[in-house]
């Protein structure tokens, strides 16, 4: 959970959680529905091409609703991690809680570039160029390392 790599999918600023998963798809417990419709209102072709990808978003990634379906949709669709210069706070906390790596770093992005990150060492690389990543709090490191809040809870009780 602390390291990962994949090809870049570049997105813009202020990607809200409605764009990640629309309100009309929330009423189900079937996680595959969210993966199938992820980013549908932003770009309907994205869902089919983000498996194994690292999302490199702009500022204020994940703003809006607290819907955890947004981060679950990304994880279930096979996204390896999300890099952005800034995140909306609930999205950021939700991502860690479901075991989806989030990397706060300002990087320049080209679609298809090779992205690698190491949250233990605090860096992200895009096509070999290394950028510093803002460290996670110790609690968040512990949760992410466990694979999310549910496994963290189970191993600490």
């Amino acid at each position: 959970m602390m390291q990962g790599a994949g090809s870049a999918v570049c997105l813009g600023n202020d990607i809200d959680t409605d764009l990640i998963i629309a309100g009309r798809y929330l009423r189900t417990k079937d996680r595959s529905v969210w993966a199938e419709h992820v980013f549908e209102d932003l770009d309907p072709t994205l869902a089919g091409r983000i498996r194994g990808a690292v999302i490199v978003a702009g500022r204020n990634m994940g703003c809006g609703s607290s819907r955890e379906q947004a981060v679950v949709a990304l994880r279930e669709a096979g996204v390896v991690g999300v890099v952005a210069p800034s995140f909306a706070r609930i999205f950021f906390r939700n991502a860690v809680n479901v075991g989806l790596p989030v990397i706060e770093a300002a990087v320049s992005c080209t679609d298809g570039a090779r992205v690698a990150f190491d949250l233990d060492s605090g860096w992200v690389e895009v096509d070999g160029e290394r950028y510093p990543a803002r460290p996670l709090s110790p609690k968040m490191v512990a949760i992410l390392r466990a694979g999310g809040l549910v496994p963290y809870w189970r191993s600490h009780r």
Partner: protein
Amino acid sequence: MSTLSERVLGAPAGAYVDREVDIAFAHDGTGVLTQAALREMGVERLPHPERLRLVFDHIVPANTGTTATLQAELRGYAKGSGIALSDAGSGVCHQVMSEGVVRPGTVVVGADSHTCTLGAFGAFATGVGATDMAAIWASGATWFRVPETIAVHLSGRLSGAAEPKDVALACVARLGMEGATYRALEFAGEGAAGISMDGRLTLCNMAVETGAKTGLFYADAVTVRYLASYGLAASPQAPEDCRCERTLDIDLADVVPLVAVPHRVDTVREAEDLAGTHLDQVFVGTCTNGRYEDLARFARIVRGRKVAVRTLVVPASRAVLSRAIATGVLADIVDAGCMVATPGCGPCLGAHAGVLGEGEVCLSTANRNFKNRMGVGGEIYLSSVATAAASAIAGEIAVPEAV
């Protein structure tokens, strides 16, 4: 010299704290995932059910068999685990919690981003995700990073047709959609005393639209009087000169009716500049503007007239609806040709009852106008209640007259 967030959380800005929570609630949307996470965590007994609440508000009454089944499962879970349930028709969770539940100085978490609304009482209130909520229900506590604070200094008094929603839109426009990310907005200054509890709830509600963790008002005589009407005793919180990151000065007398245009809540123009904009629907309600004062203001403007565009009014709670019936406000709204729907979130999140069609334009009193939020291809403008009322009568965006 602490900020209100620092006082309530008991630690300086930047510190990480583990805190017991006083109230933790979820709704029909997030509660389903919270229940699922509790099952995966292997939690069978909740230690503090008296602090917990479930409120069905997002899709009420249920629109499909699937929604009904999910709600039935959650209803059963609430009963089995001793959690108080405010079932469909009770109202929006934040409004229900504002009706004699939340008190000054408490720590409140809700599995909904607009939980910041409840900071209006001088509580530290913030939104969390469903799995976070599961861990909170299982332990009664959670961790917080104490936020830095941006002070919003209010001076003067509102004038003309301007209302607290216009102040909220002005605030979002000046800070931007991420201008306060991870921070708290603390509303203070001599102008704060002139803003009612309903108005404070509206202002704190939109704090999250700037990325803020919460918005807070210091409890004062207005707060104490409001809570006394629910039989709750509370003490005022004396403001201190805080170590704030920055101060945003707003002279209430300068605020005019404003409108956020598609698809960004921080892209705000004067209503006057948008007068004549075509509308297909007007929506009045939500955790931003579905309170009694809002309905009464709307009714004053539409009384004895007819709306010229389809108009949907959704009271924020059963208590609001009931009071609007008792005072005749509801009759004015219905007689003006408006539809009135079940207390709850209504069409705000585009899930049911008032969804927009391709190319349709809605003027809404809600807090978000994200692309496609109320329906694919629909456009959302956000305004105050008075602007919505004047526009409903005109059938296009119109500037409300001074009251």
